[in-house]
């Protein structure tokens, strides 16, 4: 040094340099700090990715919840909302947003970003990536594969299927297994594998068209016993899950039969007119796309 240090500074400088020499201290290499920084950014990005998976599952649930038939499946709007709102996925998104913030906070300049800014950024990125994942048909896989593990949660499609395994409430869902040649009845294999012979006397042309197209349908009729194998159908609604890549149903020659042999929409029997949300179902049927 080319200027005299004051006494205390000199002492402190000597003590510090003495310790550096005695303990053979060296500055830690730069790559360690860079690695740590990149690691935390990487973990932050991973948290956003998990958030995106949660978003894809939320979109999948929202898309697959059929509000139109809520009156038939649930006693009230509130119970329907509680059964279908994607609480767990919103919680997962919030959790990973927080985890992402904590990791970003530990990066070199992470302290400069407020919780609000970081959380908004993480949520926006999660929404962006999550929408893309949903668009390519990933939402259902996430929802079913991850959602199937917690004991307190059922994936939305499984949950919805359970509502349509209730013949005692007049609700039945499943695959159209076969249709009688004159379309007077059809066989429905419900979600538990049980086969039902469904009487189509009260079905409209539109209903018969859905049956003729095949695939998964939901049938509403008067209550039947679970042990029975016969069900009287009053309404039929198709069920096409959203957000899952699938092939369209093949056109069937029965579609032609269906278009000519069905009943008028006002000709249903008293038995059908007596089912609980008949008027609503009638309106829904007319506005169904």
């Amino acid at each position, binding site marked *: *040094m*080319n*200027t005299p*240090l*004051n006494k*205390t*500074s*000199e002492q*402190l*400088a000597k*003590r*510090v*340099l003495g*310790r*550096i020499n005695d303990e053979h*201290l*060296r*500055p*830690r*290499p*730069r790559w*360690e*700090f860079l690695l740590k920084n990149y690691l935390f950014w990487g973990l932050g990005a991973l948290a956003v990715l998990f958030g995106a998976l949660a978003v894809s599952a939320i979109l999948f649930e929202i898309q697959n919840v059929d509000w139109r038939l809520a009156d038939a499946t649930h006693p009230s709007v509130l119970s329907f909302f509680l059964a279908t709102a994607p609480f767990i996925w919103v919680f997962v998104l919030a959790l990973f947003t927080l985890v992402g913030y904590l990791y970003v906070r530990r990066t*070199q*300049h992470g*302290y*400069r*970003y*407020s919780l609000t*800014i970081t959380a908004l950024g993480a949520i926006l990125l999660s929404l962006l990536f999550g929408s893309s994942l949903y668009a390519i048909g990933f939402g259902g896989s996430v929802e079913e594969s991850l959602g199937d593990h917690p004991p307190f949660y059922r994936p939305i499609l499984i949950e919805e299927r359970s509502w349509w395994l209730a013949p005692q409430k007049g609700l039945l869902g499943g695959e159209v297994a076969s249709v009688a040649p004159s379309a007077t009845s059809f066989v429905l294999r419900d979600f538990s594998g049980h086969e039902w012979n469904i009487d189509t006397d009260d079905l409209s042309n539109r209903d018969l068209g859905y049956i003729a197209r095949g695939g998964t349908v939901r049938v509403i009729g008067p209550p039947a016993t679970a042990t029975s194998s016969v069900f009287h159908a009053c309404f039929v609604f198709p069920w096409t899950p959203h957000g899952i890549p699938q092939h369209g149903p093949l056109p069937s020659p029965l579609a032609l039969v269906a278009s000519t042999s069905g009943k008028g929409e006002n000709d249903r029997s008293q038995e059908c007119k007596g089912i609980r949300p008949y008027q609503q179902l009638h309106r829904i049927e007319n506005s169904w796309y």
Partner: protein
Amino acid sequence: MPLDLNDEEIVRRTLLDKDAFALLIERYEAKLLRYLERLGVGVREDREDILQNAFIKAYKNLNSFDVSLSFSSWMYRITHNEAMSFFRSKHARPQVILSEEGEGLITELEDADSDASELAELRLSREELAKAFATISPQYRDALTLRFFENRSYTEMSDILQVPVGTVSTLIYRAKRALRASLPKQFLP
């Protein structure tokens, strides 16, 4: 070594020759000892020990020094963190001594909600301020110390305390409110 070198240049030289570090120690020792005193480290030996540890830590982490910050802010940050560790490890209560300066804080407190003519008669003394200062939370005390005794900008405080600039503003606002609430009744609005 020429004394007009800036801190960042000395850091670069220290990485090649550790003796250059003495210049940084000389440059910051007095300021940091005073800062430690204001943070409430009452015993001189403790202040020196903390500072020695802070300089050793700075040396070991010299490669993490980010030139987008000032060396001063970085060194204050390390010293601040060492002081907090000291308080935690000793379960020590900070001993607040406001022996000089802080005029800016007194002016701020007096200007806030009060009538200037009344305050001409009720001049806040340094002892009263020190007493009130001792009662507020360490977090608030740190914020006020950096702002009004160390004259640090909000950005520098953000770098030292490692919180967003917005949080610094909030901290200072709340700290002034807490301090005002701790003052003797005649100074309350």
